């Protein structure tokens, strides 16, 4: 078929980016969908032809990702988040409001074709909850009036201004905050190369390329005791040191910008306001492991961020920080962005690699680990955005300096996206080991509306929840593990005394059932079972024996799955049914705390 010139150019650019053409499949489908509104058989045939794939391969990949559509949808795709952070602040009510306003239900399109509506999973706007996206634009801190205004403007053919950066990222330093990696947040034009350079940008790269050996870089990172900020907390320096030095294969650096752990929206401001830090960190990582090619895998929903990164990357190329012979040192490093298409599982590093190869995002069997056989079966390091963005600091100021900001074995600071029932949801940078109660009460301004604290997700929905009386804990990997939870992704979700914990468990179950890739039996069937069971239970159809059953189904998933998604579904569910069993008993007697959230009662 005849592909419009601009899309044709984009296709050619994408196909040229990868050593294996198939890698361009998902980005090509995303851009084609942007052009035509959906993926017709004709365009899929064309893409298949260009990539030398058969239709089974294309369909397999296409049907996996939730953002790709084979059928036409509305001109403006309204996507309302109802995941935990939004749920707590009126996500469901927002959805109901949009449904009423547009006169259509979930996954429906208005007869005039102007709007279609979809209830979606966490979109990374947690500190701006409740939030929605229309096409790729983010609208946050929604109220019914705000929603009406936005929809009216779209209906009138206009495009209302989306939030410029994530809500809650621009504020005076909160008590206890130590702005190190967020130092450039709020600085005018911070995303430009000029400002970045004015504020010490690319000095670390000079140092790393001109003064340090690869081993010295790795040692410095080891010294910093930097641990992965994506959620698993694996020591970064050690991860780099696993890459075989003498492999004849090419090596890759992959930045994991697939931020999609519910409650987590902290990589978003980093890329919005400080994209060059990620670029600089990626080049340094490249030097450390001997890689000359990097990819930034950005979740599909973050398209405008991908555009920001593309601009920054172009600047960096022009200034000689990327490309051949960087800074005259003889070191080459190519870097480009890569869009996902809607799949939480692709945040898992091996699933991310499969996705980057243009396949369904299935996790891989480990070993071999990516350090040995990653992208295209070549040695690969996959690091979270925040992790890589931290690297320039460590190189410039030294690993010891960075480590000293935190507590032993838990070096430095990290970003938290705080959401839920607090007075000041937002993005905060705190040293490792900071007390959780202080975070809630001092940093985030305490529980909203003078309510009492009930529960906290310390690091995204994949963590066991903490009860109010468990919150006197130092937020470092080891201390939180000691009380049976995890530091996780920095997505800190606070729930007040009025929160229905059965409803929270129900929504979490919906998320994992939706995001389970379907590869292994316990996760595929177990998450779906939990979803149905908790739906029935919450809606009043519970039986006494369901309470232990919820726990047992979760336990039977736990530890038995191929990747950590199964555990992520099981752990919060088990913690809720055990810690708030009383609320489950109450449901059997028809008593539910859940009431429609009044989106206006929460102060912004």
């Amino acid at each position, binding site marked *: 078929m005849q592909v419009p010139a601009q899309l044709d150019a984009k296709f050619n650019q994408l196909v040229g980016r990868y050593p294996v053409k198939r890698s361009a499949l998902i980005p090509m489908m995303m851009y084609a969908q942007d052009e035509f509104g959906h993926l017709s058989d004709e365009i899929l045939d064309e893409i298949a032809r260009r990539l030398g794939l058969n239709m089974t391969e294309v369909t397999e990949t296409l049907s996996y990702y939730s953002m790709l559509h084979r059928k036409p949808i509305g001109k403006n795709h309204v996507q309302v988040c109802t995941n935990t952070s939004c749920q707590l602040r009126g996500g469901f009510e927002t959805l109901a409001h949009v449904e009423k306003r547009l006169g259509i239900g979930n996954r429906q399109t208005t007869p005039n074709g102007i709007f279609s509506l979809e209830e979606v999973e966490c979109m990374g706007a947690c500190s701006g909850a409740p939030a929605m996206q229309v096409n790729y634009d983010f609208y946050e801190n929604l109220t019914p009036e705000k929603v009406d205004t936005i929809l009216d403007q779209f209906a009138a053919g206009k495009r209302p201004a989306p939030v410029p950066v994530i809500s809650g990222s621009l504020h005076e330093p909160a008590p206890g905050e130590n702005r190190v990696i967020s130092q450039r947040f709020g600085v005018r034009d911070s995303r430009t190369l000029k400002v970045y350079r004015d504020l010490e940008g690319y000095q670390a790269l000079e140092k790393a390329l001109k003064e340090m050996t690869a081993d010295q870089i790795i040692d410095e990172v080891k010294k910093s005791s930097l641990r992965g900020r994506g959620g698993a907390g694996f020591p970064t320096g050690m991860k780099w040191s696993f890459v075989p030095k003498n492999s004849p294969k090419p090596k890759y650096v992959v930045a994991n910008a697939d931020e999609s752990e519910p409650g987590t929206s902290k990589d978003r401001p980093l890329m919005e306001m400080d994209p060059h830090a990620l670029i600089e960190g990626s080049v340094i990582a490249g030097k450390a492991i001997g890689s000359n090619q990097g990819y930034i895998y950005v979740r599909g929903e973050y398209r405008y961020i991908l555009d920001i990164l593309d601009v920054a990357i172009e600047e960096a190329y022009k200034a000689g920080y990327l490309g051949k012979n960087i800074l005259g040192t003889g070191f080459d490093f190519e870097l480009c962005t890569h869009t996902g298409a809607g799949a939480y599982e692709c945040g898992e590093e091996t699933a991310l690699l499969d996705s980057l190869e243009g396949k369904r995002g299935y996790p891989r*069997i480990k070993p071999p680990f990516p350090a040995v056989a990653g992208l295209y079966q070549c040695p690969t390091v996959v690091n979270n955005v925040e992790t890589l963005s931290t690297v320039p600091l460590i190189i410039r100021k030294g690993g010891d300096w960075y480590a000293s900001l935190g507590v032993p074995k838990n070096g430095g600071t990290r970003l938290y996206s705080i959401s839920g029932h607090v007075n000041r949801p937002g993005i905060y940078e705190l040293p490792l080991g900071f007390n959780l109660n202080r975070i809630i009460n001092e940093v985030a301004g305490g529980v909203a509306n003078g309510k009492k604290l009930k529960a906290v997700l310390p690091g995204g929905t994949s963590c066991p929840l903490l009860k109010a009386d468990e919150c006197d804990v130092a937020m470092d990997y080891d201390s939180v593990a000691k009380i049976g939870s995890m530091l996780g992704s920095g997505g800190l979700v606070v729930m007040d005394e009025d929160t229905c914990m059965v409803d929270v468990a129900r929504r979490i179950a919906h998320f994992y059932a939706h995001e389970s890739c379907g590869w292994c039996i316990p996760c595929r069937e177990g998450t779906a079972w939990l979803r149905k069971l908790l739906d029935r239970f919450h809606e009043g159809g519970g039986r006494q024996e369901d309470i232990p059953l919820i726990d047992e189904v979760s336990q039977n998933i736990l530890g038995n799955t191929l990747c950590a998604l199964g555990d992520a579904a099981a752990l919060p569910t088990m913690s809720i049914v055990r810690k708030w069993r009383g609320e489950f008993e109450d449901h059997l007697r028809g008593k539910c705390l859940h009431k429609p959230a009044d989106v206006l009662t929460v102060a912004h």
Partner: protein
Amino acid sequence: MAETETKLISFTLNGQKLSVPAGTLVIEAAKQAGIEVPSFCYYPGLALQAACRMCLVEVEKQRKLATACTLVAEDGMVVHADTPAVHKARKDMLEFVLTNHPLDCPVCDKGGECELQDMTFTYGIDHSRFIEEKLHYPEEKWSPIVFYDAPRCILCFRCVRVCDEGMDVKALGVGARGVTSVIIPNESGQLACEECGMCIDICPVGALTSGTYRYQTRPWEMKYFGTACAHCSNGCKTTLSIRNNEILRANNRDHSGINGEFLCAKGRFGYDFTTNAERIRQPLVRKGGTLQPASWEDAIEEIARRLKQAHDTHGAAAMGVIGSNHITNEESYLLNRFARTTLGTNNIDHHRTADYAGLATALGSKAKDSMATMAQIEGASAIVLIANDATQQNPLVAWQIRAAVRHHAAHLYIIHAGPLKLQRQAAQSVDVPAGAEGRAVGWLATGSGDLGGKITGELEKFKEALAKEKDVVILFGANVRGAAVRNLVKFGSGLSGQTRYMSLGDYSNSRGAADMGVFPDRLPGYAPLSDANERGRWGKLWGKEIPPKPGVNARQMMQAALEGKLKALYVVGANPLKTFGVKAPDKIAGLDLLVVQDMFMTETAQRADVILPAASTYEKDGTLTNTAGEIQMVRRAVDAQGPRSDFDLLRILIHQLAQLGLGAAMKHRTPEAVLEEIRQNVRGYDVSIAGLLTGGTEQATSAPAAADGSYDVAADLVFSSQDDLFTSGTLGRYCSKLNSTKESKERPWSSSPTTQSWWSR
């Protein structure tokens, strides 16, 4: 392939010390030790999945249970597959699988041979805690032979892998995500593929069922006969499922054949010729110009009388015999005896689909170590494929080639006219004009021959690369014959290591017919007719002297018949009028006598004076020899209703004619007895009977005692019918189920309206 010494490691499983080669997976080590570790997704030879989690085992010093299918046994490792935690995990996984799996076993085709059913009985629970609504999707028809029932699918991905890795067809994939994941076919709800049906066989549950078999019976109502396939020359074992003397299914039940789990569309769906309505079920004798039913006594008496008459009137030189590519070794052997000693003529030949005689003659005494088996293809470090589209013509050979490339990184070299699917696996491929394959081989052997600069350049590289290979297997089709075969062996002998050869013919016993000496100039075992000692040996065995003058070949016989020089023609299991493209078939009627033994009213049979209805391969006992020389037994799985085996017919006729003074009577009454005579007398057939009786294969390496550099063959005598995956010569016309798959390819039916709507967004 050179065996490399593998280090042994020892580990403990269920308290048992096991010693296995380093790199062995625990699940395999367990199987070898007789300890069952259950699994759905693990399948030997296919990529590891770790998806079903049924094989979870406990490893000491490891926090979580590990999947035995991905766990490599290590020295000192202590593994438990029988602890309460392991048993609980199996139970839990089954409970998960059964949440959405419909409990429709009473109406499910797989009931009784379902792995999920078996595992639930063995490891599962007797009640379900899942009270939610199960997922339901309508069943889909993907082709006339493949149906998919999504709710039953447990997503083990065996079908996807066997289609991709094993078949290199990639017609199946996985669609959607999470619990709604389903298997999807490639062409918008339909299958465009080789219709091998491997996906059906490999499915552990009733998700993929066969359109040719479903809803007819239950597995326990049937009897099972493992036998060699009736179609191509590869000799796959197929298991016939029989109920009430009817074949209801052919599949690959025990994987014990040379084909392992492989079977193509013909082996799986091409069995219903046995019950085809056009089957000839009683003898027919031409009376007043038309063929009319006759009693066996009358028909046999008629043949014997008229053969004797023709013989006595026109002499033995006016008699001719055309043998078959399908009948058993014992039958071909008997036919040979019949021609040479009963009729006293060397006018005997068959449609030669490969130059087996050429290869045997070129190899001579080296044949014993130089003929490749099917297994040796997979074991080869390099494979040369010349003038054959193995994917279409020799599906098992192609399967073995792919396995060699996939599992052992073997190098494949191809010389062929036009594109081939196997080029995807090839290291080098030279495209030559059709018919020039022999010249290309000549160039390889001698460095001379005019093929043009481009091809010569490619052949140079080809030769250069092959010079570095060791233990090469060379496979070649019909276009490499006569002198070209000699050149090929000359070239192959120059390569390092042990070079092995396989001549690729068309049909189930093409090789057997050749080995049994169905030639005008060769006796069984390729013994030259010109050798007086051989003539003497066989004449003595068969009770009558063998005439020394070579007979005429098949084409010459047809010509002689047209010219009225041949007076009586005896055809068994062949259709020479069609095969040799006889221009004026009706003139054949000028023969004094044309007798045809066959299953169907072929072009040749239509002109016969007497037709004797013959039993099929699935209705008789005996042995077949595949194109690699591997002999295996066929078994009478069903009784032919009316027809008799060619063995019986020939035996009776030999007896009748002996009574009339032609030839000697025969003492053997059974194929087993004849096989014994073959084993004792045919060079290369002195194989172990035990191996055959237990369902295995034994390789025959028939060849003349000495290589004969002058042996050649006319170009128009060795040729392939170029059958594809859906044709099988004349026999293929009568395979309705097979033809239905072929027709569906040409004219796609409309798929069910629900197809796709529920998984595509």
